[in-house]
């Protein structure tokens, strides 16, 4: 894909080279290629337009002559811009509080429960006593799933299988945590659609009642154009602090990351890249930018060298 885009851009720039610098006129077809590449990577249609307009301005006036391959020069401009848009550097998670409360939210099947287990494991390794809380009272075997993961990573799981009130369960978990010296409480919740009023009310009530240290929005990196609508709707109700991007062990380009970051302006804090409990990393905006542009291979080549 990167080769592809790079070649296309080189071609688009052929005529341009004789002209010295990038101008409004000669940049049009290049910008179109970039926009198309972004949309192919699942960047939202409107976001792709905004971004390429910005890139166009950035590129205007730059000297093409100095570059052997103007396509690559342009890609560098684009990739720098995308990196900037995605936050520049990684943002940490706060686990301060007595105890700190981390509320997990997101659509069905996005990877919330798996991430809860991973995060518990990570925090435990940092030497803090963690409690996992099972507030998904709907999905068949959701509690069992969290219990299995808790056991795998050696973290207690608080659950009340008979209780059908998520807010009550969460508050009881908090009491339990205080009594038992837990420093961090992670609250796993049911998957829900942003258009499901009742379920959105539930998670809003959880947030209000718990006043969490961090509220995280977990999103599948394979998500398409709808990512912005969902992220916006969750953010409107929850004003979350950070995003978790999952399933990056696949071959999706993950344009949703850029869309979400641009639209809700909240940092992406973690990436999840596998089903194993260790497959968790902090987010690197530069790597993500290169992935969206299809430059993944280039990055790993550089890393290997």
């Amino acid at each position, binding site marked *: 894909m990167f080769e592809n885009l790079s070649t296309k851009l080189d071609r688009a720039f052929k005529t341009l080279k004789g002209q010295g610098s990038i101008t409004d006129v000669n940049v049009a077809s290049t910008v179109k290629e970039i926009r*198309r590449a972004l*949309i*192919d*990577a*699942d960047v*939202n*249609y409107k976001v792709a337009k905004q971004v390429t307009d910005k890139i166009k301005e950035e590129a205007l006036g730059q000297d093409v002559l100095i570059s052997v391959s103007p396509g690559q020069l342009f890609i560098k401009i684009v990739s720098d811009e995308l990196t900037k848009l995605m936050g520049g550097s990684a943002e940490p998670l706060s686990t301060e509080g007595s105890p700190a409360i981390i509320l997990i939210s997101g*659509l*069905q*099947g*996005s*990877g919330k*429960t798996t991430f809860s287990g991973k995060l518990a494991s990570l925090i435990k390794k940092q030497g803090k006593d963690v409690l996992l809380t099972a507030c998904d009272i*709907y*999905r*068949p*075997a*959701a509690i*069992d*799933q*969290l*219990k*299995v*993961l808790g056991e*795998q990573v050696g973290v207690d799981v608080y659950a009340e299988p008979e209780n059908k009130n998520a807010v009550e369960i969460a508050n009881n978990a908090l009491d339990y945590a205080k009594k038992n010296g837990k420093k961090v409480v992670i609250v796993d919740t049911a998957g829900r*659609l*942003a*258009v499901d009023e009742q379920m959105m009310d539930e998670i809003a009530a959880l947030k209000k009642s718990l006043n969490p240290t961090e509220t995280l929005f977990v999103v*599948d990196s*394979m*998500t*398409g*154009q*709808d*990512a912005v*609508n*969902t992220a916006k709707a969750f953010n409107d109700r929850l004003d979350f602090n950070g995003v978790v991007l999952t*399933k990056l*062990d*696949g*071959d*999706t*380009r993950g*344009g*949703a990351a850029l869309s979400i970051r641009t639209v809700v302006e909240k940092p992406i804090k973690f990436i999840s890249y596998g*089903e194993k409990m260790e497959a968790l990393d902090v987010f690197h905006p530069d790597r993500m930018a290169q992935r969206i542009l299809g430059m993944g291979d280039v990055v790993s080549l550089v890393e290997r060298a």
Partner: protein
Amino acid sequence: EKSSQSIFSKISKAIVGKSKVDDEVLDDLEEILITSDVGVDTTVKIIERIEERVARDKYASVSELDKILREEIASLLSENNTEDLEDFVVPELKTPYVILVVGVNGVGKTTTIGKLAAQYTKRGKKVLLGAADTFRAAAVDQLILWGERVGVPVVSHGMNTDPASVAFDAAKQGVETGADVVIIDTAGRLHNKVNLMNELSKIKRVVQKFIPEAPHDVLLVLDGSTGQNAAIQAREFTKATDVSAMAITKLDGTAKGGVVIGISDEFKIPVKYIGVGEQVDDLQVFNKMEFVDSLFNKSEK
């Protein structure tokens, strides 16, 4: 935001008395298609077809243009494909009709199986489920709970056992107990993981040892909110298991699932079912025209 009326009437207005659909209209159409995850290639294809047809037929009325647009999109969903299913039916066979359900992680495989089992049971079929996701935490429990909910038996060997051997036993037990339908759940897997994809081929081979024609259907479940990666999923799962049908889930949200238009056109795999919720009745047989209409309808819920 535009609603269905506005795009159609806009297109109609814009081209009345012209022989060409103008750019502004095509831009609107492009935006609707792209934001429905139809993808750039397929969008371009649809727009070219409409331009051609409008030039050729010189359309007569507003309602006709509306029809052209819907037809052109629907035709991509149906070329070389079978017709839409009328109902949840399976052919009468001497052996059980075996359905192998595959897909990436978290798309809704297990839930779709529960819903399908309910529909077949309702129509008097004897259904058996096979819990061959022995990997994901509590996956077996989840399927067993679905089995209880819809009143069908589940063959399971517990967690961390060999999935192929569960599938084999499900087929065997299906034959022995005279089941009409056997549905096998598998663990979610990303298509770029070679070992896991090979495991699917193995499950298939093992089932064939017992019922040579099985699986009669390999159902690929796609999450309706997935973007362009769904096309790669379709390609890779087809390579490993000859996918014969698709189900698109989570269409009760605001995602449109437009990526299946290109998939259906490229791979000639029919979409059979759509998932529209988490409850047992939230599964419908796929209807092309309704699906196309939904691309142009703002979600109201």
